[in-house]
């Protein structure tokens, strides 16, 4: 049973990873600077 659950969770994780990568909004990056004014 534990094995079945683990298999199910592994499939779910893979589904999330594949779906997530497909959904990512592609943006051309300027840079990865950490400087920023806040929003709140």
């Amino acid at each position, binding site marked *: 049973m534990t094995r079945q659950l683990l298999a199910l969770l592994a*499939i779910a994780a893979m589904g999330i990873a594949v779906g997530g990568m497909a959904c990512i909004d592609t943006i051309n990056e300027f840079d990865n600077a950490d400087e920023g004014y806040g929003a709140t």
Partner: protein
Amino acid sequence: MEHGPSRAGWGEPISPRHALAGVLLVVAAVYLPTLGFPLVYDDGWVLSSNGFIRHVGDLPLLFSRRAVQANVPDAFRPTLVVFDTLAYGLLGLRPVFHHAVSVGLHLAVCLSFAHYLEKLGAPLALRLGTVGIFGVMAVHAEAVAVISFREDLLAAWLGLLALNLAQRCADGQVGASWLVVVVALCALASGAKMSVATLPWVWIVARRYGPWRRVPPVHDRSLLVAGALVCGVALAVGHRCYLYGGLSPYGESAHVLSNTVGLAPVLARSVQIHLTYLQQLVVPFRLSPEYVDRAAGWAEVATWLAASSLGLLFAYGVFCLRSDRRRLTGFSVVAAFILALPTSNLFPLPNMQADRFLYLSSAPVALGLAAAALHAGRWVARGRSYSGWIVAPLVGFGVVQGAVAYATAATYANNATLWQVASRRAPLSARARAMVGIQRIIATGDREILDAKVTALARADCRRARQLDPQEELAHICLGRVAIAQRRWSVAHGHYEQALRRTPRRTDLVLGSLTQLSLDLPSDDPRDRYTLAAEYASRGMREYPYSADMLAAAARAFHRTGHPYTALVLYRGARSMRPERWETVAAAVELMLDLGHIPTAQRTFWEQRDVLRSAPDSRYRAIAARLRHAQDFSSDSVIEPLLVPGVFPP
């Protein structure tokens, strides 16, 4: 949790602990990529340039009004400030560790939620399903992926710990003396973020209308425990009222829309927002790092539709609470409404809408959705030989939520991506557009002169931002930065002054820039410029004594105007506020070279070489070359740097 094996719904025994651990692993996997993200959004204000978290001895200041006067970031959230101080003290400023803390906090919230559901009597399958759905919900991406929004996670975790202990106290499983801890946990949770202030009412509703039958305790202390929970919130509210003379830390700020248009139009819009929230929770699309605040009318069709939908939903929830068969639905609906109250814009907020506001209020929604998915699963599995079909809708829903969460978290991969996505999703946001312009300039790095294309694009962004909202200070900061890049000092000074007029909050960077720019203004008498710079520096240091960037700007100004020893003291102060800032160290080395203290400059360079390596290559090489050149003309022996202390004593 149960200690023995249980049945999850498809036949065979399962260990609750192993099953929960497995679910938490999947939740952690969704946010694993965030460990590689840098500091973004408010992280600079809260962590990088926040000198307060580097001065542990000043923490008692959080309990006095001086914290507000000194503009300590998030002074109205003392638990969070203490947590940030501890986190910085233990982990330094490496983003990977702080992101790991955020993911850890999210998992701790999931675990505490699972424990609370168990104490309420929820069956294992529902507990696992609820925690799984809550853990991967797409609306949580912002709260988990942005380090400075861990306030929501911390508050939720402490609040759920308080509820768990409250439940044990009320059932007589622990002594009444633990009520003190309940009060403390609830006060700490509210001190991290007031969004948990209504959590005691969820506990009261669960106690009175719990969805699952429980054995009545021999010594029921419900009333006493409810009092303790409310008392904890009251302590945090009292602290805030003492600091600010009222509930709101934002005062009359123009960033709070209700301060300019009144409460009624804001609430009308808020009703519409809450219907959107419901959609985002159930069908996760149109999530955004930015939303535009605007008022609405109570006569608008959208307001009426939203108000009647939410009103009917709440009435249905209350009705279901009274029915034994539908109590779970009733509890989910009513608890979600209760938890949404603090961020419902009844109380002043500088952002009317944000994904992170849904963090805690999504917990009862996750419970309702998991129950509905399992119910649908039972319908799907009917007549089929394999009972595993029961979890199919739940897993399917979780995969969709998790995939969107994974993709949404990628929005926060860096500031450039974040603000471009924000500008695309909220095209009418002046703030997002101005930030895109600023990011364009930052992206050029250490180039002395921007190329014409970048300048034109950035200026177009800044002007569009100013057109969208003439009162948005970031539009002027953006225009100021473009002017600085073009070395048009007077124009830049004018824009920064405009920005300063438009906001009373977080002006340390503006004051720092004005301090520097004042020295570059054209004037017949340089003393006029010096006086102006000194005025800005003095105001900045008075208003923001914990701002490393402000102190560094003031130090640079004194350095440039021929006050080296004042500059030295300020450089030391700036470094103590933000030891990771290479600009401060480089400027201090240059100051020593200007004074002819070559061994001290060399010693400082050598001691701080790790910090200086963060500087752009050209700058690092220039300082090193200047040191070598100075050494060539120096009469000091080569071992002299070993005998003198550096600028920053250990």
